[in-house]
C-alpha cells in the first residue's frame, strides 16, 4: 500500500470540509475520486501532499501515511511534495522556457550534470506525450504552448522530480476533447509505474480510466469500489442517485 489515509479531518473556520476520511491507495493503480462540486475533492487532494497548508485558515488532523510514514509528522515538507506530486486544475506555464519548466524542480533538488538534465527533460516530455510537439523549440517560452500542451507540460514538470504518487485535480476541465483524450491515455500509461489519484467531476472520465473509484459527498466517503462495480452496481442510495445522472 503506497498511501493510506486514516481519520483525516479538515476544517475551515467553523465548517468541516472533510469528515473522517479512511482510504487506501495501492501502487500501479489509477484511482478516481468523484463527487459533486464543493464536496471536498480538491481539499482532499491538496491535503495529501501538504499543499493545503499553503492556503491560510485550514485545520488538518488525522494521518496520511506514505509507505507507513505519516507525512504530517515529517518535518521536511519539501521532500513530501517531491514524493507526492500534484497537478492543478488550471494549466500553468511558469515564466520560463519549456525546458526550464520541466527542470524547475529537478534543479532545486540539486541535479547539475548537463547531460543528465537533458535526459530527464527528454524522458519526462516523452512520458507526458509532448516531446514530438516541442523537441525543436525547447528553449522557447512555455507560455506559447496551448492549454492542453501546458497541462501535459505540468505533468512532465511533476514527473521530472520522480514522484511516487501523482495527484491530479481535474486536469482536463479546461481542455478540449482531443487534449482530454491525450491526457487520459497518458494517465493510463503512467499508472503502470506509479500510484495515480485523479479528482474529476466527469463521471465518464472516471469510468474510462480508473481502476478504483471513490464517491465523495459532503466531505465524507460514501462508497469505494472497483470502477466497474461501482458504476454498474452501486451499494448506496446516494451513489445510485449521483451516478444515475449518467443515464437520465
Amino acid at each position, binding site marked *: 500500500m503506497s498511501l493510506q489515509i486514516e481519520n483525516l479531518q479538515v476544517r475551515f473556520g467553523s465548517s468541516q470540509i472533510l469528515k473522517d476520511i479512511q482510504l487506501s491507495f495501492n501502487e500501479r493503480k489509477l484511482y478516481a475520486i468523484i463527487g459533486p462540486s464543493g464536496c471536498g475533492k480538491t481539499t482532499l487532494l491538496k491535503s495529501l*501532499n501538504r*499543499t493545503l497548508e*499553503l492556503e*491560510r485558515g485550514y485545520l488538518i488532523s488525522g494521518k496520511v501515511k506514505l509507505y507507513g510514514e505519516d507525512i504530517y509528522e515529517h518535518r521536511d*515538507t*519539501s*521532500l*513530501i*511534495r*517531491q514524493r507526492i*506530486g*500534484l497537478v*492543478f486544475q*488550471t494549466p*500553468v506555464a*511558469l*515564466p*520560463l522556457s519549456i525546458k526550464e519548466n520541466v527542470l*524547475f*524542480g529537478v534543479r*532545486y*533538488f540539486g541535479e547539475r550534470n548537463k547531460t543528465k538534465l537533458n535526459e530527464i527533460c527528454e524522458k519526462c516530455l516523452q512520458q507526458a506525450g509532448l516531446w514530438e510537439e516541442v523537441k525543436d523549440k525547447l528553449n522557447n517560452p512555455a507560455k506559447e504552448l496551448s492549454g492542453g500542451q501546458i497541462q501535459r507540460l*505540468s505533468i512532465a*514538470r*511533476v514527473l521530472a*522530480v520522480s514522484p511516487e504518487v501523482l495527484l491530479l485535480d481535474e486536469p482536463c476541465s479546461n481542455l478540449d476533447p482531443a487534449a482530454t483524450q491525450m491526457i487520459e491515455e497518458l494517465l493510463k500509461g503512467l499508472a503502470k509505474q506509479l500510484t495515480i489519484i485523479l479528482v474529476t467531476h466527469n463521471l465518464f472520465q472516471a469510468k474510462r480510466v480508473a481502476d478504483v473509484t471513490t464517491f465523495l459527498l459532503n466531505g465524507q466517503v460514501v462508497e469505494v469500489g472497483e470502477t466497474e462495480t461501482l458504476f454498474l452496481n452501486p451499494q448506496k442510495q446516494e451513489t445510485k442517485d449521483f451516478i444515475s445522472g449518467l443515464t437520465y
Partner: protein
Amino acid sequence: MLLRRLLDTLWLIAFWSAGLLLLLVLISILGYLVYRGHSVINLEFLLASPKGLPLGAEGGILPAIKGTLCLVLLAVAAAILPALATAVYLAEYARQEGIRQVINTTVQCMAGLPSIVTGLFCYALFVVRLGFGISLLAGGLALGMMVFPVIVVTARDALLAVNNHYRMVGLSLGVSRWYLLIRILLPQAAAGILGGILLAMGYAAGATAPIMVTAAAIATPSAGNLWEPVMALPYHLYILFSQQVSLDKAYGTALVLVSLLLILNIIAMWLRHRNGR
C-alpha cells in the same frame, strides 16, 4: 429621457474639464519654468561652478547637479536592501496577519512623516550623535530613510501582482520559497521594483527639507566626499530664490531639477506599465 442624456453630457464635460484643468496646471508650471529659465541654460550653466557676488549670481550649477546625484544614489543604496527585504517578507513570508498589519502600518506612518521631521531626527542621530557632521553621508542616509517606504510599498505590490499560480505550482513541486523567489517571483516583479526605485530617486532628488539640516552647503567645490557637505539642486534653488541672489538662475536651476524628475518619472512609469502587462 432627454434630461438624462443632458445630465450625462454635462457630467462628461465636468469630468473632462477637471482632468484638463489638472493637465493645464502642470503644463503651465512647466511652460513658465521654460519661459523664465531657458535663457540662462547653456553649457556654462550646466558645467561651471557658481561664481559672483553674492555667490551664484553668475557661473553655473555643476556642483549642485553632482551633489544631488550623489545624494540620490547614496539614498537608494542605503534604502534598497532593507526595503526589498521588508517587501519580500510582507509579500512572501509573513504568515500572521497581525505581524503583517503592524509592519504595513509602520511603513505607512514612515511615508506620512513630514520630511523635515525625518531631517531633524537624522540631524540628531547622524550629524550630532554619531558625529558625521553636516555631510553627504548624513544627507544620503536621511533621504534613504525618507524613500524607504516608497520602495517597500512599490516592491511589495509588484511582488503581490505576480500570478499566484506560480507560487502554488512552484511550492507544490517541493522547492523552497527562496528558490521560487529567485527564479520566478523576483524576475517577474523586477520591472515594477525598478520603477519604484526610480520613483524613489525622483522623490529624493526633489526633497529639500531633510538635506537642509543634514548635508547641504551654500557652496562647496567638492562633491562626492562622504564626510563633506555638498551642494544640491533643490537647496541651491532655495538659496538663489530666498536670498534674492538671482531669480533668472533660480528658474534655470528649477528647470534643470524638474527635467531630471520628469525623466526619472517617465522611465518609472514606463517600467511599471511593462510590469503590469
